[in-house]
């Protein structure tokens, strides 16, 4: 019998115990992978070359205060600004509050410039531009409600006192959050009696180097006016939102460490059960000339095999599972827009596998130590 064969035989000696332990390691690493993915999604908004060029200006008091539209022309004159677009959170209700998806009123002609990474169909966009009461919708929201181009929808305003009736004229895919709806800011202004207000300005800089100076100049321009601004990069803007949800990092981090700790506990006790019932055989191995290190490596191999199999099943299971889930569930809808991509990255899988490696090592330490130290005579005396 070969050494690997011997290890395998030993591992499978108690199939039930092996399966139970394997399943609990798999489940733990599955959970770990999912939680890390959730954490990543919440704390590291995707950064593309395009999004790195965007800065957001909001009212200095808070996002809850609106800015006068007349700021726009002054921002546009600032050197380094490529495009400046009004973007106002509409927050309307479509049918039921449960059917939530983000809606924004924007400058219709600038949207392709600002969100240049999203794919818009030029013909559809031409139709969208021509119709004042038109909207462009992300593919995920289209699919969620089964909408087609040409459908009419009504949003009931909760923040703005108007109920726009919109016709879907265009669909966009990819690049940015695919659940948004954009419609003409002019249409909203008209319905609300031309308040000349907007929520934020989204600005595309000419190049990344211009951004720090740009941010400073915008805020300086409006300093000591009735509506001072706070301008920041898109990334900072998004992270600020996330930080308000609470200390997600601590919450998920501590849950993950509890999971890992529990998993080590379970696997270590399984390994010590497995080794203890074998003390007689180990004594025999010693008697026929195996030294302590050789026995240690046999035990280590077995525990590594167990941990790594669990790791592969758990991490790749999560990978496959999220992919599968994506085919059938609209995760953005289920999570109220909190999770959009929910992508398991190679980095997360690798860290899960590293934990499996540590698990394999740690869980065999105690039993291996005692069996190496045990004398041949005591080992042979053991009955069960």
């Amino acid at each position, binding site marked *: 019998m070969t050494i690997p064969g011997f290890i395998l035989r030993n591992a499978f000696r108690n199939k039930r115990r092996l399966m139970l332990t394997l399943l609990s390691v798999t*489940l733990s690493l599955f959970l770990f992978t999912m939680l890390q993915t959730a954490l990543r999604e919440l704390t590291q908004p995707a950064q593309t070359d395009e999004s790195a060029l965007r800065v957001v200006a909001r009212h*200095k008091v808070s996002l*809850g*205060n609106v800015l006068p539209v007349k700021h726009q022309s002054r921002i546009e004159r600032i050197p380094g600004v490529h495009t400046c677009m009004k973007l106002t959170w509409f927050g309307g209700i479509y049918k039921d509050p449960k059917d939530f998806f983000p809606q924004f009123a924007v400058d219709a002609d600038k949207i392709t410039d600002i969100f240049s990474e999203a794919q818009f169909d030029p013909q559809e966009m031409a139709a969208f531009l021509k119709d004042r009461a038109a909207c462009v919708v992300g593919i995920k929201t289209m699919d969620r409600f089964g909408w087609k181009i040409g459908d009419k929808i009504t949003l009931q305003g*909760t923040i703005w006192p108007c109920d726009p009736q919109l016709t879907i004229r265009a669909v966009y895919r990819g690049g940015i959050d695919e659940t948004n709806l954009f419609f003409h800011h002019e249409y909203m202004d008209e319905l609300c009696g031309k308040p000349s207000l907007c929520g934020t300005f989204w600005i595309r800089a000419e190049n990344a180097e211009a951004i720090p100076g740009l941010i400073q100049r915008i805020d300086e321009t409006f300093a000591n006016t009735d509506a001072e601004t706070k301008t920041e990069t898109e990334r900072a803007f998004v992270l600020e939102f996330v930080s308000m949800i*609470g200390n997600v990092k601590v919450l998920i981090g501590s849950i993950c460490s509890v999971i890992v700790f529990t998993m080590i506990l379970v696997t270590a006790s399984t390994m010590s059960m497995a080794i203890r019932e074998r003390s007689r055989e180990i004594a025999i191995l010693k008697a026929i000339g195996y030294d302590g290190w050789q026995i240690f490596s046999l035990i280590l191999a077995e525990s590594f095999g167990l941990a790594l199999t669990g790791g592969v099943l758990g991490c790749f299971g999560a990978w496959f599972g999220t992919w599968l889930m994506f085919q059938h569930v609209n995760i953005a809808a289920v999570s109220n827009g909190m999770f959009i991509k929910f992508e398991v990255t190679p980095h997360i899988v690798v860290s899960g596998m590293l934990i499996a490696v540590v698990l394999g090592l740690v869980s065999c330490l105690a039993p291996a130590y005692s069996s190496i130290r045990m004398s041949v005579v005591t080992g042979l005396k053991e009955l069960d």
Partner: protein
Amino acid sequence: MAVPLKYNFRNLRVRWRLTLATMLGIALVVAVFVMIMALARGLKATYVSTGDPRNLLVLRKGSTAESSSQITRNEVRLIKYLDGIARDTDGEPLASAEILVLINLDRLDRTGTANVLVRGIGPVGLRLRTNIRLVEGRMFRPGLHECVVSRKIANRFANCRVGEQFRSGRTLWRVVGIFEAAKTAYESEIWVDADEARDVFKRNFYGSILIRPVEDTAAVATMIKRMEADKQLSIRVLPETEYYLEQTKTAAPIQWLGGVLAVVMSIGAAFSAMNTMYAAVSARTREIGTLRVLGFRRRHIYVSFLLESVILALLGGAVGCLFSLPLNGMATGTMSWTTFSEVAFEFRITPELLMKGMAFALVMGVLGGLLPARLAARKPVLDALRSA
């Protein structure tokens, strides 16, 4: 006669290493469950306890949050003197037009900023809320840019202690008092004078009106009907308690997380309990045989092993509950999806929640014990005795 419980306890003690490891596994699962649920519960309790059942809240039609609702001054005039609104001894109607503004403040530890609600309120508004208690300093005086801050906000944000000043926009607000509000949602607010707030934040409208109707349900019903039908008013009237109750949905994602985590983790823990119990059964095969010879029935053996697993799990559950207890009352905060502002609350561990944690442990124990106990009960007596 059943197998004495003492037998199970002794067995657990003999194999103490394994018992401890399994117990700790179950304890951690129960602790995670109780902690996350305590988070959701604390958040919910904040909203459930807010509002006086006697008060009605008036918002703009279609509006879901006080912070984004708009009531014109004309509407305020029309509503204030409606029949059906109670009056105080001076004949002043118990109606408080208020404004709620979101402001961005630095956190105390300077790790970032968050939105906080500033409520512009008048003397009537203070009288309509009975559970407010000033614990430090004094009430604000109109016209001096003074404010009172809730204790929880003062503990979480910079420059919010009595005597300190914080800047919002171009205005410096001086903190003159700290209040407590019986763990309600008001404990996430800063209060200033209503007219001053409208002036500083450039609002020519109010956000909401809180009214106290007369104690006559029929009269109140007709008043509400009349208000909502009035062409001059574009408003929505709802009980104050209902408005806050609706916001308990903020806790839904946390509850969801707690539930999913607990279920998946408990499967893992049940597997480990099962492993332990299988080991216990195989190590005690001879004892099982002996017990059978002594006259114990199969079902006695079955119940005995199942009980042992349950005891193991309940011990774990109890330890888990103990682990979670220090968290009770700890202050934390999250963002309300209704107002986009920080809501400060406390972890709340109730006896009922601890019972749920124990019930959870019980389920893990039963699931982990069922199959091994069946195996033990089915062992033929002679084989069991013969085994080494």
